[in-house]
């Protein structure tokens, strides 16, 4: 008896992957049928170039969700970082080597602060990160109300550079995802993220450094937002405080589409990666057939609700 149920449950994550993979193929075929330019190398290259921003913020979100939290400050943080980068580089275009590490450190610090606040104040992460998001957004607007700044050519290149015909940013993304997957599955700290997400009290009684793991997950989310901001700034060439507004919700979509459970403890980065591909391809397809971005918002909302709905009903 248990053999049957267990096998089904074990493969549940695989099933999620399979569903997403099938949907990807369906989208690709549909795209090819609707437009003869959709399945060209040029468009596929474009598509891969777009992956990095959504990919990085979704990866950050994956760490936090697996650990049993949620990070709603991602969007504002990315927006703030693009403003910092574009304005800093307009002032001193020669200091790219300093600007990038500074952005990453600041991003990680903000993430860690989110984690610390949830640990120390024991306030629900939804509130902590939502509050943090508001603080960051407001502070950024005090500094710059409109998009502005500029970036040197050399910096802009990292968004468009290609390695053997493949966009550099896509290579970076794949490498980071692979490392993240290895880290989660095969190291003590990575594994502990699953334990803490699975049952925080049990993790504590098993001698795991729960508070440190929590802070670490949020810090990683911040770091990922930092990387996303770097590529976003390079691509757009300006700093825009509002550019991240949509990213927070968008960062959650691939995570849940990829089968990671919002309650924490189950899922992984492979699912998120497939989810990122799916969302990106869908948006690209909608652009191709001239569906307005308003509809894309509606569709995004539908996807997230349906994905979570499917996972919860299948769990019963």
């Amino acid at each position, binding site marked *: 008896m248990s053999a049957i149920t267990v096998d089904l449950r074990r493969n549940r994550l695989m099933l999620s992957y399979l569903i997403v993979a099938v949907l990807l193929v369906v989208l690709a075929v549909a795209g090819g049928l609707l437009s003869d330019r959709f399945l060209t190398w040029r468009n596929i290259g474009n598509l891969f170039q777009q992956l990095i921003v959504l990919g990085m913020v979704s990866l950050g979100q994956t760490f936090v969700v697996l650990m049993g939290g949620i990070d709603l400050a991602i969007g504002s943080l990315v927006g703030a970082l693009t403003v910092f980068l574009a304005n800093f580089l307009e002032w001193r275009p020669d200091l790219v080597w300093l600007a990038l590490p500074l952005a990453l450190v600041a991003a990680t610090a903000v993430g860690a602060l989110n984690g610390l606040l949830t640990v120390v104040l024991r306030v629900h992460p939804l509130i902590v990160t939502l509050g943090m998001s508001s603080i960051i957004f407001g502070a950024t607007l005090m500094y710059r109300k409109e998009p502005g700044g500029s970036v040197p050519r050399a910096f802009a290149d990292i968004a468009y550079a290609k390695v053997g015909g493949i966009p550099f940013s896509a290579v970076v993304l794949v490498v980071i995802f692979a490392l993240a997957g290895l880290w989660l599955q095969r190291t003590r700290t990575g594994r502990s993220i699953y334990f803490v997400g699975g049952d925080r009290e049990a993790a504590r*009684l098993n001698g795991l450094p729960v508070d440190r793991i929590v802070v670490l997950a949020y810090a990683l989310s911040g770091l990922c937002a930092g990387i996303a901001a770097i590529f976003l700034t390079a691509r757009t060439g300006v700093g825009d405080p509002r550019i991240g507004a949509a990213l927070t919700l968008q960062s959650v979509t691939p995570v849940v589409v990829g089968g990671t459970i919002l309650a924490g403890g189950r899922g992984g980065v492979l699912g998120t990666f497939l989810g990122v591909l799916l969302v990106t391809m869908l948006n690209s397809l909608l652009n191709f057939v001239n569906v307005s971005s308003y509809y894309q918002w509606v569709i995004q909302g539908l996807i997230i609700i349906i994905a979570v709905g499917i996972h919860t009903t299948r769990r019963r």
Partner: protein
Amino acid sequence: MSASVIELSQIEKDYPGVKPLDKVDFAVRPGEIHALLGENGAGKSTLIRVMGGVTKPNSGTMTYLGKPVSWQSPKEARAAGIHVIHQELALFPELSVAENILVDTQPRGMFGLISNRARHVRAAEILAQLGVDIPTHAKIDELPLADQQMVEIAKALVGRVRLLILDEPTAVIAGREVDLLFENMRRLRNEGVGIVYVSHRLEEIFEIADTVTILKDGQLVGTSPVSALTREEMITRMVGRRLSQIYPPRRTAPAGGPDVLTVRNLKAGPRVRDVSLNVKVGEIVGVAGMVGSGRTEVAEAIFGTRAVESGVIEFDGKPFETKLPKGSIGHGLGFLTESRKDDGLFLGLPISANIVAPDLDGITKHGLIDRKQERALAMQQIQDFSVATPSPDAKIGNLSGGNQQKVLFSRWSRIASRLLILDEPTRGVDIGAKVEIYRIVRRLADSGVGVLMISSELPEIVGLSDRVFVMAQGYVVGEIKGDALGEEAIMDLAVRSVGHREAKMDQRAEPVG
């Protein structure tokens, strides 16, 4: 037998690959306490769900108060007078007693608005009917568990209850609280209510039940008056094989080795006022006492999850002070907690991850977890502790309570090379798994591990322990060993000492500093 409150005939329930109920007949007469016995997975819960309208059977008939019925929903069954009290109480902890009792039928006052006064009056009436004195304004989470359970029963009395089903109501209460529950069950029985009672504690069946039905693997083993069966016969029928002995043989000679754990005058919060005890190498030491006497808190203080105010904890003869479980684990100390679902297991994770959780270092090579070693280790542990599972990758939430508990034993046995603290090690576990767990505990002790076992089940304390400390209100009130070790001696100490200690407390209330 048309006089039955409920009569189920040839009930079958099928799931793909599983048959939790296979042509089961079951009937409850008015004014009868009918015990439902069986190991976990025998089909008791499914039978309860069928009667309560939660699950629809695939075939078979159900007659309720003489009429054939087929519940479409739990609500329908409840409206007809069937009330199920599940093991996990369905109360709103933040709401008042009155609000909880009248959750379905909020009494209306003027303008059709809910009337607070009417509610409290009605709730008080119902509680008076039960003969319990619980303030209707109190919030549920301010009440002791026993009172919470009474509130659950009170909910059943709002309408006219004909059939009351209690699923392991005594799993979380003990002593006088159980007496109060039984008193009320008898009262309801005398009023003609049919009662179905599920419990793993056979002693209770003999004390309270009139009739017993035993299920095994979804099939009916038999129904008979309780007085017609002995304890041994019940167990044999439930398990399907004869249990020569429930408890493994005790140590032949009393442990004479050194103390692995010595606790002297420990004080840690309001529930640990003055505790001294010791555990020798290879010894099983029981800790008995009422729920709330401070037993769990002592364990927490030793393990490092509860702050110690004063006193000495010595481990292997050396002073031991840790504020973190990690430190204790490093010293070879393990703690199998009371509630495996809340703070023991990672329910969503596979068995292998659950086994290695406190010791990831042990399977890490060059900074990476060795998956092969992890799997091999898990397979070995699954075999050693005879966990029934097809694979170490199976999710632990899908195992039965007994098997989950065995996984926890396999986890902690690797860590606890010196001392293993067990808090209610067989709660919610069926008799077959209990026997296996007792053997595991003895085996660990024989390999030189000291075991400190907290339990509310006196037969278990008496049957397994080499020595027993009895606690009451935060004090160790006595130690029992050798021939004196018996249930009565323990109860006697646990109950009698309460008044005595209170007197002693008053003396201590002198200025301290």
